[in-house]
């Protein structure tokens, strides 16, 4: 057992931290969000230059052979600075589809992605799914050597920026079955595909994507037709671990901001931080953050576990702890900041919105607790 970062990992961390310190002030972040896609292509190129885009891929695939711990190092730093670039959506989620499947041309896509030459997106979530991974009502009807896709995907990260969309659609079974889901690689600007970008509550960019009799060649199917669920589940598992890292960074940043505020804000004749009730609240935030950090590490380790049941259970364990910690730390960060905490301008407000989004991403606490119980009844 060893919790120390390797020297490569320390270098990676130093590099990302340096990038964040130099590039990602709150003002700069505002400018990135104001760019046409809601994030900065220039930053993305720097990610490529720093090797961040290849962290998640094996060397055999053209990546840098990092483990999920490496990805977590990146997302933790990104969480501290509220990065708006679609790193998790593109490198981890869509990247997860590449990592956990095999198909012709995969290496080329990875190579392009690692260099920053292509943006990828996973179009999976649907309106009625409410966190259930196997909910796919988008249909793929086979007609000769083509599939005809009909349906609608929402909350697609980088959906309007992506060069390639990985789209899940149902080839058989009913809406919530795990069996019968296929994944299709659909290029940008494909006929029958309409992409509508919109902003999330945290200011992040999403898209709704509609498929109206969109014809996709059968060669675009990733993995075995009808067996896409296992691939998506692994990709989302990676996404959970990455989001856990982001959440820990975010909580670190919230706690730091709040502690600084308590030390410097004077009320009733002295700094707020001398009030024991507020000190204890800050201590509770620290404990919640550290418990979350432990579970983020656990999630990162367990993404590579080959036992489906144990791996999924571990991911849900992590998401529950992270969700509870985010909930408490986020709400208390606002409370301890007082009036300024509920303004749109102050960093804590931005952080709280992001923490609320992260609480829900890939399923909230209630969902994952129910999921664990479902899995336990299967054990």
């Amino acid at each position, binding site marked *: 057992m060893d919790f120390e970062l390797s020297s490569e990992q320390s270098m990676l961390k130093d590099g990302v931290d340096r990038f964040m310190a130099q590039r990602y002030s709150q003002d700069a972040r505002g400018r990135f969000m104001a760019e046409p896609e809601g994030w900065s292509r220039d930053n993305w190129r720097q990610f490529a230059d720093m090797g961040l885009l290849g962290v998640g891929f094996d060397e055999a695939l053209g990546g840098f052979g990092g483990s999920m711990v490496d990805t977590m190092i990146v997302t933790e730093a990104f969480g501290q600075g509220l990065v708006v670039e679609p790193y998790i959506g593109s490198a981890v989620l869509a990247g997860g589809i590449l990592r956990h499947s095999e198909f012709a041309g995969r290496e080329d896509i990875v190579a392009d992605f690692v260099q920053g030459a292509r943006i990828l997106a996973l179009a999976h979530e649907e309106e009625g799914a409410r966190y259930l991974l196997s909910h796919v009502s988008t249909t793929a009807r086979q007609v000769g050597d083509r599939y005809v896709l009909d349906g609608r995907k929402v909350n697609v990260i980088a959906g309007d920026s992506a060069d390639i969309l990985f789209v899940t659609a149902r080839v058989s079974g009913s809406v919530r079955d795990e069996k019968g889901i296929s994944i299709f690689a659909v290029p940008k600007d494909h006929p029958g595909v309409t992409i509508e970008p919109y902003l999330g509550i945290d200011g992040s960019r999403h898209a709704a994507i509609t498929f109206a009799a969109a014809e996709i060649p059968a060669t675009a199917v990733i993995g075995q037709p009808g067996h896409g669920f296992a691939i998506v589940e692994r990709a989302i598992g990676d996404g959970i671990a990455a989001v856990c890292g982001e959440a820990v960074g975010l909580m670190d940043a919230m706690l730091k901001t709040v502690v600084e505020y308590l030390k410097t804000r004077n009320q009733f004749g002295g700094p707020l931080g001398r009030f024991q009730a507020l000190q204890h609240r800050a201590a509770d935030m620290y404990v919640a953050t550290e418990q979350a950090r432990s579970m983020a590490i656990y999630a990162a380790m367990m993404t590579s576990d080959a036992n489906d049941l144990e791996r999924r259970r571990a991911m849900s364990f992590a998401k529950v702890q992270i969700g509870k910690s985010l909930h408490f730390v986020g709400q208390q960060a606002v409370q301890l900041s007082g009036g300024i905490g509920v303004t749109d301008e102050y960093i804590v407000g931005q952080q709280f919105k992001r923490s609320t989004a992260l609480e*829900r991403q890939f399923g909230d606490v209630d969902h994952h607790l129910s999921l664990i119980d479902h899995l336990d009844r299967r054990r």
Partner: protein
Amino acid sequence: MDLSYTPAELEFREEVRAFIRDNLPESIRAKAGLSANYHGQDVRTWHRILNDRGWAASHWPVEYGGPGWSAVQRYIFMEELLQAPAPEPLSFNINMVGPVIYTFGSAEQKAHFLPKIRSLDYWFCQGFSEPGAGSDLASLRTAAVRDGDDYVINGQKIWTSTAHEADWMFCLARTDATAKKQEGISFILIDMATPGITVRPIITIDGEHHTNEVFFDNVRVPVTNRVGEENKGWDYAKFLLGNERTGIARVGLSKGRLQRARRLAELSEALDGKLSDDPFFRRRCIELEIELKALEITALRIIDRQRKRNDGKPDPASSILKLRGAETQQFSAELVAEVAGPLGLAQTHGGHVPWQEFDEADLTAVLGAVPNYFYSRAATIYGGASEIQKNIISKAILGL
């Protein structure tokens, strides 16, 4: 001891319900409960409808246009508004500045201001908080310096809700720079159209414009606009903050949100069927319902006790209502936001929202949910933060 409403009280409740049902404009009803605050024009419209009925100033003495209701009737009235939901009569006017003027103001002030306050011809905002004085109100620094028949005011206020709608402000300003903290403060009415006043919006976490900063740059206000004695403003502010606090639990608001959560859950899929059948969701609703029942009875008990004491002083027990009331408002807002689930993650203000599955009414209900939750976090901060309420209870009630 009798917890039940009398037949007369029940009849009154029916009358209020019927009035709201018949008179609340459809345009306001459609928005009702979806956003954290109503738009200014909605408040004006509905306030005036209530005023025409004689119901705008529910606890004012009859001589100033109050309806002559009992404390229980006032409670019923407010709860019915919140639960409808419909806008409340403007609290700054009715609960705050009005009572200060009819209790401490001059005859001229009463004659001039009270009718316009009641009818909302004058919309008042509250100029208390300052950047250096949040929960610690008494350390305020905005100065009013006497110059002939005027005060010349310089300084800054913050968290001035509705300053952008308001015609007037009631303001605390320091009229004696040498006095100790709570002394040397006066209570002054300021016409917002006076030169030298700048209002700068503060956008809150829900993306809305509820509140403002207000800057005073040599603003001249006639001394006759001071209410009561010079340097006694702190006493009037305490009176104002302690006045009619039994409504602060806003049980009706939370009840309305609970209904909304339950309705919305019927439209949402959970892991095993509808969310409305999920045992955890159901239990959470029941727990909130129980909390609200307890809070409602606690509010009625405090009303009853105040009625009997009848000394006009704030009851420190009303801190329970602010404390638990704010928490249940937050909890209920959070419940709606959780039901909204991933569909709540899209921004509602300004942007295009691409949801299609729900019909329009349900869709709108989902979409306000998360910003409402965001703004609900202010409930335990504004108007005496929860930490302040606990200080009050431990000191004034428990003697610690």
